[in-house]
């Protein structure tokens, strides 16, 4: 097997939460936003990351690009631990990992023209390029993502959401990264535009041999684009497997619940399909349940679930559950 482009091992992110009224010496409360997450991304492949809002997906992405402090290891091409690099050394890898964001308009500086926005990473990482070379590269990438050349002097607020996301993609790809992190890139877009943007990403991935970390909050969006899917809950990995395995044979009750919410195009299946409702609310990430974090909402929870923290293991198909298995008859009923 080839070496992964990026392999994360036991990544943890903890935030210190200080409330406005706190005295300077009171200890901040800990929020464990990402808890022992490990995964590999192969060159040119896509890892889908799925989980409810607030489960730490964006924080995981930020940990990889080091805009939040994280512990653990993020090994790049089997050589360098990105989390251990000095900020100066890290700079060299920042052009290899680029990110596009959830809110397309908010990710573009309203005071800069499209040309200035797209060329910023180039100007940062390739100061050796002349202005003309930068201009040709910007023009080429704009054409590649479907933006018209005469738009170059326009400002972000003059564009639609879908076009703004194309600008974000162009900015990310201008420096020819190897890994593209897409943090819910289509959640803010209309359904018809969503398909266009996902299609564009897939096309670019094929042509440029891009690896993609694709974040979404439901399983249906990542289904087309992913090679492997990882399900997160309260900062922990619940289940991770190659796409086929996960969609046909989910083992974890949380994945099964998420799966039941995925709409099926065939109306016959749709009617016979069972919806497993997730009972109860998401627990506060400040005080997660003991043992298995999912136990407060798990239909299969038993006494031992409150004591032992299930480990996901290291198989191809990882599942952090003490009682894994396909949906049983009484659960469906």
């Amino acid at each position, binding site marked *: 097997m080839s070496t992964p482009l990026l392999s994360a091992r036991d990544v943890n992110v903890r935030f210190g939460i200080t409330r406005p009224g706190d005295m*300077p010496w009171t200890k901040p409360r800990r929020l464990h936003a990402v808890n022992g997450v490990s995964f590999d991304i192969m060159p040119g492949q896509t890892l889908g990351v799925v989980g409810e809002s607030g489960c730490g997906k964006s924080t995981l992405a*930020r940990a990889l*690009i080091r*805009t939040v402090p994280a512990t653990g290891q993020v090994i790049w091409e089997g050589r360098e631990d990105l989390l251990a690099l000095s900020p100066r050394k*890290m*700079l060299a890898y*920042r*052009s290899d*990992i*680029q*990110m596009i*964001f*959830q*809110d397309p308009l*908010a*990710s*573009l*500086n*309203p*005071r*800069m*023209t*499209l040309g200035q926005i797209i060329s*910023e*990473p180039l100007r*940062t*990482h390739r100061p050796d390029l002349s202005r003309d070379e930068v201009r040709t590269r910007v023009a080429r990438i704009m054409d590649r993502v*479907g933006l*018209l*050349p*005469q*738009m*170059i*002097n*326009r*400002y972000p*607020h*003059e564009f639609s959401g879908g076009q703004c996301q194309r600008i*974000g993609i162009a*900015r990310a790809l201008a*420096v020819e990264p190897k890994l593209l992190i897409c943090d819910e890139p289509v959640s803010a877009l209309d359904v*018809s535009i969503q*398909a*266009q943007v996902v299609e564009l990403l897939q096309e670019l991935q094929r042509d440029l041999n891009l690896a993609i970390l694709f974040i979404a909050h439901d399983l249906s969006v990542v289904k087309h684009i992913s090679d492997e899917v990882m399900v997160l809950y309260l900062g922990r990995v619940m289940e991770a497997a190659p796409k086929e395995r996960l969609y046909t044979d989910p083992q974890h009750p949380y994945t099964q619940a998420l799966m039941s919410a995925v709409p099926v195009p065939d109306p016959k299946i749709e009617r016979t399909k069972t919806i497993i409702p997730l009972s109860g609310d998401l627990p506060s990430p400040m005080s997660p349940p003991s043992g298995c974090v999912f136990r407060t909402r798990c239909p299969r929870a038993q006494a031992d679930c409150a004591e032992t923290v299930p480990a996901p293991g290291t198989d191809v198909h990882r599942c952090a559950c003490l009682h894994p298995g396909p949906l049983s008859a009484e659960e469906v009923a």
Partner: protein
Amino acid sequence: MVANQHKMEALADRLSEEDPVAGRSLWADARRRFFANRAAVAGLGILLVVALFAAFGGLIAQWSNEELDYAVMGAIATEGAPSLSNGHYFGTDDLGRDLFARTVQGTQVSLMVGLVGALVAVVVGTIYGATAGYVGGRVDSVMMRAVDILMAIPYMFVLILILVMYGRSMTALFVGLGLISWLEMSRIVRGQTLSLKNREFIEAARATGVPAVTIIRRHVVPNLLGVIAVYATLLVPLMILTESFISFLGLGVQEPLTSLGALISEGAGTIAYGTIWQLGFPLLFFCLTLFGFFFVGDGLRDALDPKDR
């Protein structure tokens, strides 16, 4: 189908606009809204008149601001009244000096005080506030506590103390006003920077590895300029008012220099002798200046923050 439609639209776009179009920047939008605001335009007009008066009034004046007109001395209330024939367009002051020339001089000084005060506030306050807000954490706490402490000191008291201790000079006045003017500005800028810092485009720049100084210069400050411009235009009249108050107390600029505040003070002192013009003309220019700045400041605020409408 969708792709086809996309292509059609692209084609239509291409046909209608051959050349790269200059985009409408947010600034251009704001300019349009500003000039659509009648009060703001009137304010701008007033300020223009006051500025022209301060800059070129000296050329029209028949007398210098220091000469004493011995012809009117002793009978100021009758002979010193505004008149075109003897060249005292605004009359004379108590000592027989030409009030037109004095008002020109006073307007110059007051405008300078206001503009210099605001300039110090803009430069120091922006750099200080943006740094505190962007760096955050402990640095931010320390920097903003320092501002809190400085703000807790009654500034008028300090200003008066400085003027009494170091003599009543222009320099002391500028230093005193400069010291206090940037505090509020740095707070405002820091607050805005904090909210900007969490915006995704700043995160995008950080993720790409743009250096912090460049982020502040390229991404933070341009997005603060609106707030800074509004606050600075509103700060100018406040500085003028502060200076006038100090001059009114007799601690401001020293003779032979004068300011609108000092002239108003003198005019108010002699009003019992029936020389109403000695109060009226300085007061007129004082009010015009203040109104002008307030109107323009309000106009800028509305123009730059279209969410309110």
